[in-house]
């Protein structure tokens, strides 16, 4: 099972790797190919860049939605279901 803290640590690793200029924000160019609509949903203040707080707010929301048994973590099955729901697979 992946705990919330592990989720956060994984996200921090991904964020800092993508943040090539060390600005503590992610510009669209730093993300590579991505869905602009999803970028806009995460960029809640609409300043055109993603902060780590914005990224984590989005990830925690996904974690809470995926944590069906409410044990404050995601099992492998819950992750698969979450990804399938996110991608619209099997719907």
């Amino acid at each position: 099972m992946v705990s919330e803290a592990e989720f956060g640590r994984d996200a921090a690793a991904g964020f800092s790797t993508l943040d090539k200029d060390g600005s503590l924000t992610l510009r669209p160019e730093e993300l590579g190919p991505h869905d602009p609509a999803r970028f806009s949903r995460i960029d809640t203040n609409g300043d055109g860049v993603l902060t780590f707080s914005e990224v984590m707010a989005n990830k925690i929301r996904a974690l809470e939605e995926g944590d069906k048994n409410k044990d404050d973590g995601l099992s492998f099955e819950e992750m698969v279901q979450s990804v399938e729901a996110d991608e619209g697979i099997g719907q």
Partner: protein
Amino acid sequence: MTRPHEGSRSWSKKIWVMGIAALVLAGCEGGGTAPAGVGTVGGAVAGAGTSRMLFGNSTSGMLIGGAVGGLAGNMMLDRPAEERQRQQAQASRDADMQRQLEFERQRALQQEEVRVQIEEDRLFREWQRERLGT
């Protein structure tokens, strides 16, 4: 009628010719591996012998001949040796440059890894503080 000392002069010439031939052969046997400078000295000695044949036992003639021989020796032996040394020095500089570039590349990679690690830790700790605070 043979002049006095004519026979000894003839022998003297033969000895100089043999000496020059020996010097030339010595330069060839080196296979071009002689250090820079040897060619000039060898050429000067050979030149001195040549000048002695051309100008007789004149010191100025020997000096002039020596200078010409020196130039010839320089062209024949020193230049290839200098060129080889220049090429070796260039190869050494190229190798140094490659090592320096590789060192800089590795250092940049390490710096980037360290920067990412520090940023990751900082982001995670700040996020955890925010989570605990809310």
